[in-house]
């Protein structure tokens, strides 16, 4: 197992490296600099600012300097907000986005797994069609449609829930989390249904029944272990998607999280901010993919043993 983990981690490193490099050169090659949108700046002042932010150095030197900073964990100063560093801004937004993502994921897992497993127990009946149709709606209605609709219905027409802010008014975390989590609840429901159906048709489930096990135990003790593996494997990509989804949700609900900062930084050509956020978010995603891969492999005893060098 350790060997497997090690290999995976080694494979992840070049990815992060490629991300950093590609982002760096992409951003720098864009027309226009961070100061071009400001009101007319006196050329000398502009030069001084550029020097402070190292923009006067040749490109590849900027690159290596940046790498050096990264190694020390310094993501650089923000162009847009002088006096504040990227680290500062990132870490102010991180807890918010993390909390939002966590709630969304919990909603997605609870609803998704329950619905999917439930549906798989009686395929092609109402017990199956109803949850799966709802799941289909969740997939086909993007968060930027669902969010405003929920706001319209629950926030404005019914006035049950607050529609902006995070942590200011009790209950203002509900709508954003639900919006973000719905699509994933839908995917997870479909995945767990498919996984369970596959497992329930296996011979060893028949063996379990032949032993006299009650159906609920057949499902929980025997079927779930294999059936939920696709869901675990999905968590990595789900994380990446949640992050992307947070861009939209935070914008709609005016939440001061990483996603919103990222979108703003992109608009403002705040180089270091874009770079820093991209590197940070990408590393997070790569890390989560890694963890989810490892867990999924570990759950499969055959793979577990293969990598431990046991007989197979």
């Amino acid at each position: 197992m350790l060997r497997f983990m090690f290999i995976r981690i080694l494979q992840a490193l070049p990815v992060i490296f490629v991300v950093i490099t590609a982002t760096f050169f992409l951003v720098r090659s864009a027309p226009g600099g961070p100061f071009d949108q400001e009101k007319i700046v006196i050329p000398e002042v502009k030069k001084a600012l550029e020097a402070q932010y190292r923009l006067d150095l040749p490109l590849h030197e900027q690159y290596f300097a940046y790498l050096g900073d990264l190694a020390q964990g310094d993501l650089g100063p923000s162009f847009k907000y002088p006096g504040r560093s990227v680290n500062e801004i990132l870490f102010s937004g991180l807890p918010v986005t993390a909390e939002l993502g966590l709630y969304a994921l919990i909603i997605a897992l609870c609803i998704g797994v329950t619905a999917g497993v439930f549906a798989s127990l009686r395929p092609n009946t109402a017990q199956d069609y109803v949850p799966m149709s709802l799941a289909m709606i969740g997939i086909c209605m993007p968060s930027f449609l669902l969010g405003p609709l929920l706001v319209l219905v629950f926030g404005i027409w019914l006035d049950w829930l607050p529609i902006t802010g995070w942590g200011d008014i009790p209950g203002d975390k509900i709508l954003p989390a639900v919006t973000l989590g719905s699509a994933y609840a839908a995917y997870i429901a479909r995945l767990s249904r498919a996984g369970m159906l596959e497992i329930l048709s296996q011979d060893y489930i028949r063996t379990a029944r032949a032993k006299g096990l009650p159906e609920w135990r057949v499902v929980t003790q025997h079927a779930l272990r294999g059936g939920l593996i696709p869901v675990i494997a999905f968590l990595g990509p789900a994380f990446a998607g949640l992050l992307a989804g947070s861009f939209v949700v935070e914008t709609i609900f005016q939440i001061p999280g990483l996603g919103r900062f990222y979108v703003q930084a992109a608009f403002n050509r705040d180089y270091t901010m874009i770079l820093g956020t991209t590197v940070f978010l990408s590393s997070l995603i790569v890390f989560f993919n890694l963890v989810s891969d490892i867990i999924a492999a570990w759950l499969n005893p055959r793979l577990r043993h293969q990598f431990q060098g046991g007989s197979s």
Partner: protein
Amino acid sequence: MNTVAPVFEDAEKGSSLWHDAWLRLRKNKLALFGGSVLLFMVVVALLTPWIAPYSYEAQNLDLGASPPSAAHWLGTDIFGRDVLTQIMYGGRISLAVGFIATAVALLIGVTWGAVAGYVGGRVDAVMMRLVDILYALPFMIFIVLLMVVFGRNILLLFLAIGAVEWLTMARIMRSQVQSLRQQEFVEAAVSVGLSPAAIIRKHVVPNALGPIIVYTTLTIPSVMLLEAFLSFLGLGIQPPATSWGLLISYGAETMEEYPWLLIFPGCALTLTLFSLNFLGDGLRDALDVRGSKD
């Protein structure tokens, strides 16, 4: 190749697997519904310039935003433009992005995966390592970046989206080809003496098509979602062009006063996505079974 001469006059008609799949698909009401709606949408999109009730630019500033009425079935926006017309033109773009980007992804992915899967060995290892690395890159972030950096170019949009989707297509094709390669009828073809090119053409590709067709049908909606997402953030389609994603984002801004500006484009998008997904699911069920084995 199947012209049977008088020697086989009384030959019975065979029922190919495609035919069986078609029969199965026909019985699936949801899939048929999806297929019909999709067809309708495509036809409307193609004929839009001729059948749209109003011209695309026609504004009616005196009218402003108004709810559905006899003259404007779906209402008007704040410039007095007919919403139905907007949706029809927006649909052209959204559907076009969906189909074209998917086609690009299909072309690249299928070729890449087929070569890697059939040749195997080192070539396969290298090709798939590239796919793995690209796969691990957080694309959402990159696309956002690309869109910002290179300006809002519709061509680039297609390319960027296609560049994301071809990876999964390649993986699917490769695993299909790999498993087919080990099938005994491919071995039989080798032992008969067919060249690798002929084997891929006659034996591998026709049998790999099933999952590819299914996946293509399911890729189109996710491409459309991606475009809508980008347009919503202001990073996709730019005015004066319009797409469903853009329309939804405008509608969201003014949804309190003019809810129909959000709801109707939303319905159009959701309905189309529904149809594609139902059709894709139906195709998957129909093509899955290889016919009775015994």
